């Protein structure tokens, strides 16, 4: 490949630049257009939603679909259920998972780490048959307890896995110094390692929360009429109201809005967590 002359070089650079912007546009637009269409559906009345050719800009935009969702379905209860389940599952996972990640990282317990990895990659569905029977025997079906417990299946491995990676990356000297000064390993953990790992804990918390919030399969099997979480509730809107698209899109938006907002606000933490958690976890 020969290249002579500045102008040719410049033309090529210009094409490279244009190609880059075009590529980014092509790559980002499916996501952007999808969510815009979701918003558009949720803000239009039923007539516009079923019009052909489709109406793209809501005119005038209406919030009646959102009102509809909360009036016709018990969405307030389901929202509360989702909040209780996801917060409990995330909180408990942090409580148990952060020390566990520390212990595994410090003891270099590769077998325990492998077990956590396997737990992370096992399909959630495969836990459901035995747990379903267990909760039936215990008479817990129809309460929120089985949901919180099964969501631990998702949150605990995520937290442990991210924390292993994080604690492994911390320099050990500070804790060793604390140990020399007579601190117990528990004190070294609480007062030295944990404060240093705060960003990691943040990442683990956000991801555990999002994955718990998004979970559908545990709820669909284990939840009763009053204990549905939001993803299950929104699926039920589909089955009962076949073609009213406005409320359906509004319901879908309500379910996923907290997660989308969290992603927009915390993008740095989430990207960090997904790359360590992703590369190291799966």
């Amino acid at each position: 490949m020969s290249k002579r002359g500045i102008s040719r070089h410049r033309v090529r650079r210009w094409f490279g630049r244009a190609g880059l912007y075009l590529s980014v546009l092509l790559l980002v637009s499916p996501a952007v257009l999808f969510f815009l269409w979701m918003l558009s559906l949720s803000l239009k009345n039923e007539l516009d939603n079923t019009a052909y050719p489709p109406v793209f800009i809501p005119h005038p935009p209406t919030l009646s679909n959102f009102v509809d969702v909360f009036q016709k379905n018990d969405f307030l209860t389901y929202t509360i259920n989702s909040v209780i389940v996801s917060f409990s599952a995330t909180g408990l996972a942090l409580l148990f998972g952060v020390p566990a990640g520390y212990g595994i990282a410090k003891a270099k317990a590769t077998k325990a780490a492998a077990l956590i990895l396997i737990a992370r990659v096992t399909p959630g569905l495969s836990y459901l048959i035995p747990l379903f029977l267990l909760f039936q025997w215990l008479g817990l079906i129809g309460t929120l307890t089985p949901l919180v417990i099964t969501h631990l299946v998702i949150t605990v491995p995520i937290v442990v896995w991210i924390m292993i990676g994080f604690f492994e990356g911390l320099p050990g000297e500070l804790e060793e110094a604390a140990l020399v000064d007579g601190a117990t390993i528990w004190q070294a953990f609480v007062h030295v390692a944990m404060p240093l790992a705060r960003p990691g804990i943040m990442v683990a918390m956000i991801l555990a929360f999002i994955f718990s919030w998004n979970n559908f399969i545990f709820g669909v099997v284990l939840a009763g009429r009053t204990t549905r979480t939001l993803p299950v509730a929104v699926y039920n809107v589909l089955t009962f109201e076949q073609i009213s698209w406005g409320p359906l899109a509004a319901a879908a938006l309500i379910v996923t809005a907290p997660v989308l907002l969290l992603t927009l606000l915390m993008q740095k933490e989430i990207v960090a967590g997904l790359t360590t958690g992703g590369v190291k976890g799966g």
Partner: protein
Amino acid sequence: MSTTTATTLLPVAVPRGRAYARRYWMFAVPAAVIVLVVILFPWVFTLFMSVHEWKVSGATPFVGLANYTHMLHDERFQWAVVRTLYFTAASVIAPLLLGVWAAVCFASNFRFRGLARTLFVLPMMATPVAISLVWTMMFHPQLGVLNYLLSTVGLPPSSWVYDSSTVIPTLVMVETWQWTPLVMLIVLGGIASLPQDPYEAAILDGASAWQMFRHITLPLVWPFIMVAAVIRLIDALKTFDTIYVITLGGPGTSSETLNILLYQTAFAYYDLGYGSAMVVVFFVLILLISLLLLKFRQREAWR
């Protein structure tokens, strides 16, 4: 903690190693109990159920390997395996190609890069049930926006998920839309860790962007691409929410993957014994792939 900063400057001779390693186990005990109850118990109990005939009510006689041999004669199961392989292969390859392309783009500097990257990542974080519902509406044969868009560029309407020949490619499209970002993030992490010298040398030699990608970036990021491939493989095999919501395995059984069949067997037909046997087979498959992942991780000791 005020004392620690001073002592770090001194050479530290703490008894490292075994004695401490054992004591650090205490940290893992509470989590280990949870793992035992909600993760290990189900594994063992599933194995136990898989060798019994187990319906929701009635006796549960021991049947040996009958549930497993049943799979060998069960055509519905075998078709589910074939479909799962088809769906998985396509759902690994497409996101991988697009994800590498996206990573190369997002690795270069341009205005609004942060915003563009965040928007690009959104599909992967959004609630799968919610996005599946919106896709379902977009696939509507008469009123769906996708067929309208096709008609504006002069293409014939597609039957999307309403025809057995197009349903799996359509689901692969949803899967690709959703999971290309994860591939991008992993590969982007790889590109970010690359040394700059080879590129500088290549620019001096007058290499084109494609040549640099082909001969420098690609070989160096290859381990990251492989990790992304394995993760994608595991995730694609596990796909449930989108298929369940969009098609429920239909039309007929033409998009019934292993995971969907598993769900139907256990929670629609309540054949828990057979369902458990499928779980075991599925689990072994995932386990083998995970071992592959561990092997990649050990061989490529990055960071």
